[in-house]
């Protein structure tokens, strides 16, 4: 029989992260790591002046 542990939000990091772990017995049977935010910076960059790119990208 397995137990699922969810830690969301992971704190003391930059960004929004969700960690789920399936524990069977005393072992980790499965684990998931999921970024919980999508902003689409790559999509936003398309078609813009390339000199602006570093200024956009550094805000990821």
């Amino acid at each position, binding site marked *: 029989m397995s137990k699922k542990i*969810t*830690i*969301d*939000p*992971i*704190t*003391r*990091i*930059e*960004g*929004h992260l*969700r960690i789920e772990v399936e524990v069977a017995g005393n072992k980790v049977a499965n684990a998931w790591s999921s970024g*919980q*935010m*999508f*902003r*689409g*910076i790559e*999509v*936003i960059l398309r078609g*813009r*002046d390339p*000199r*602006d790119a570093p*200024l*956009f990208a550094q*805000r*990821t």
Partner: protein
Amino acid sequence: MKEEKDFYERLSEKGISRRDFMKYCGMLTATMGLSASFIPKVAEVYAAPRQRPPVVWLQFGECTGCSEALLRTMYPWVDELVLEIISLEYHETVMAAAGYQAEDDLKAAVKKYQGKFICIVEGAISTKDNGIYGQIAGKTFLEIANDVCRKAGAVISVGACASYGGIQAAAPNPGGYKGVSDALGIKTVNIPGCPYNPVNLVGTLVNYLLLGKLPDLDDQGRPLFAYGTTVHDQCPRRGHFENDEFIKEFGSKEAEMGYCLYEMGCKGPDTYNNCPTVKYNEGTSFPMQAGHPCIGCSQPNFWDQMTPFFESQ
């Protein structure tokens, strides 16, 4: 009194002289546009706080730059000062708890201080497809903001993202991101910038603790003490602008001589902020001083309105 004595002793143990602290109070008082006679009163706000307002800091669609600006660049001892004059109940980047325990802390703080806490928001809120592009603990940013912000005494949106939508709201805004005021339809104090100058947030909080009210705001909810004048009107390179002395190329002789950056795309004339006066990193420098044109980062939708950054409009 004893509390003040303890405070100065604590600072001294951290290697901060009373002189350093008074210089900081002087800087803050001047930034707020108050006369020098307020300096000892500002010092008292820190040394013998009469109240520690609870603060809940929410982070949504952001890069955490606004938190980093406050925590890392202000002064090495900002934790001793700023975090002690408020009672920081929730902040995902620094709090000890994680997961369900962090959420319990948030719920408890909102319940205990309902109507009284200051909610500081960093980051924009996704509104497309019911806001599923941003979630914390299984709830969307929109759900969390609707719940927590509406129960706060005041909401302060820090940074371009919380104020106006920020980078993720730039065309074509895939996630349907909006600033807090826009997404919830409520009035917020806005302290925009990318990042904002953290001195302006501290000034706003200290103004509140000192005078019991928020500073005078402009029609966009921005504190007038910080956003009342354009960057161009405070710029040390203004003389070069008036004399038609422009840099045409980075690395040129003109660049070395510190000429005006207008033709390199500087958006200073269209931008309201106090960067040339207060500067960044303990008053070390600001973009034009370092030779980079202003990108207009405290204006609404600057990612679309002020780009291309290196072309003058």
